[in-house]
């Protein structure tokens, strides 16, 4: 009885609500057509063989074909190195302009510049690094002329793992700096004073108080940087012309013309990437929530 009484207004509420949902229909339709449907197509394709039948073979090959494993491994290494390097350096920069004691105007300068640099990517960024560290680049020339060192003879190469990592860092550490500066602002003065009153040294304060509080946003943002580098295509393509086979470059080649000789495997490779990106975004958001407990 009670159930019947309760369900009546609930049902009416749902019905009037149903009309309200019409207002967001265009947005959902757009998301369905241009976000969900394309992803779904790749998802279904990765479980389909040449005859259109269901198969797990593509997923299996993802873990057994050497070229594919190498591509993933290379992408993961580049992303990890630039996330770590960009993370540490970005943090030090954020530190220096927040609690580090540098004059205030430097901070707004750095924030503006980081905003620009984290958005300055793709072809122009690659060209800028060619002009800097390429075979005829400025630093290359200066090193040769003034120090007598040909950096390309010492094993350095811009069109390689090291070179691409250095280039990625240009948009990685500004992003870190932009996210970490507000987090460092969240460190309360009282914590430091309390620590000092209890006789803690500066090192003890940093290791036992500040660092544990900062750890979640630090890790979270580094995971974000990892995803940021993992999904990058244009910069790598413009810099190396496709000679460094990271995952995105391989997928690009697969779109241009079935280089894997198996469309299903191409789809599976794409889904593997989405999987890694999803994990990194989930990691970022959950660590972000954790860090809100103390900061702000």
């Amino acid at each position, binding site marked *: 009885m009670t159930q019947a009484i309760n369900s009546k207004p609930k049902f009416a509420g749902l019905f009037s*609500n149903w009309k309200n*949902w019409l*207002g*967001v229909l*265009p*947005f*959902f339709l*757009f998301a369905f*057509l*241009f976000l969900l449907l*394309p*992803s779904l*197509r*790749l998802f279904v394709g990765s479980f389909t063989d040449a005859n259109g039948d269901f198969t797990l073979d593509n997923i299996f090959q993802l873990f057994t074909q050497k070229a594919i494993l190498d591509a993933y491994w290379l992408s993961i290494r580049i992303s990890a190195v630039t996330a770590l390097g960009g993370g540490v*350096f970005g943090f030090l*920069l954020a*530190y*220096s302009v927040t609690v*580090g*004691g*540098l004059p205030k105007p430097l901070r707004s300068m*750095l924030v*503006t510049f*980081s*905003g*620009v640099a*984290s*958005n*300055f*990517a*793709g*072809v*122009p*960024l*690659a060209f800028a690094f060619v*002009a*800097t560290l390429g075979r005829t680049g*400025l*630093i290359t020339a200066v090193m040769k002329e003034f120090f007598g060192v040909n950096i390309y003879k010492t094993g350095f190469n811009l069109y390689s793992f090291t070179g691409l990592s250095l280039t990625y860092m240009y*948009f990685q*550490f500004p992003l870190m700096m*932009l996210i970490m500066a507000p987090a460092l602002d969240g460190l309360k003065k009282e914590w430091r004073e309390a620590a*000092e009153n209890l006789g803690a040294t*500066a090192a003890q304060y940093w290791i036992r108080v500040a660092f544990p509080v900062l750890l979640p946003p630090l890790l979270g943002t580094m995971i974000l940087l990892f*995803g*940021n580098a993992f*999904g*990058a*295509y*244009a*910069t790598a*393509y*413009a810099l190396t012309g496709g000679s460094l086979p990271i995952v995105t470059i391989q*997928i*690009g080649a697969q*779109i241009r013309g079935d280089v894997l000789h198996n469309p299903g495997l*191409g789809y599976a490779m*794409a889904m593997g990437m*989405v999987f890694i*990106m999803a994990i990194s975004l989930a990691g970022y958001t959950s660590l972000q929530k954790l860090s809100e407990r103390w900061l702000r």
Partner: protein
Amino acid sequence: MMSRLRKFPFWSWVWFILGAVYFLLPLYSTLDFSLSMERDKISLLAYQKAFEDKEFLATFGYSTLLAVMTIIASIVLIVPTAYWIRLRLPEARRITEFITLMPFVIPAIILVFGMIRIYSSPMSIPFTDIDLIKPLTMTKFGTNVLIVAGYMVLAMPYMYRSVDTGMRTVDVRTLTEAAQSLGANWFTIITRVILPNIRSALLSGALLTFAIVVGEVIFASFLGVKAFGPYLFLLGQHRAYEPAALSFVSFLMTWAAMGLIQLFTGGQGQTAGAH
């Protein structure tokens, strides 16, 4: 006690200067290179040549047009949605926010992959051979629709967030009730009341979208349109000085866009990117 009497922040300066060098060196190198087209003197010849190229004008104009279309279409799609969710449908907030985060999970290269596979075959009525629409990738108009849709997806996280933040600062409900009591219809409310009230948020979203779209390479090259990104890439294959000049100009444009955003929002820089 020690920390009260702060000494000169030596390490802070070290990190800052190191960062500044990292930031500025590539820019300086690019500028230096772009100015050295003529032997032993500084000249703007590379800039002159780059701007005189008909292809440059055509591709840059086309990319600008795509950016404007993307911005308009995004505003038309997102503003009413965010407005409606705030006013009548708060239960749709979570799912909508989730959708706007999806572009972070699905990189542009994957999205274009799926789009090409879906829209390069004709759409037919299920179980028949009757085609409803020709493949979108086959016609010029269809390709333009696809590329603008793709750019809208890329810009969605930033556009949605800026619009939503803009609406949080104005009292949408009261404004709506006031407008309704004066007899305004929905269209009037959105265009004459809501839009003007969130214009700084719209501007910052629009500028960020512009910065993303104008140099974009992935959608443009895989959908085969003659936009600025692929043009700059090809120019880099067979020229030396002009690409450097255009790269430096791109940097200045990004700077202008970000500077304007800071001016309008007065806050932290936003960040996006099609890396």
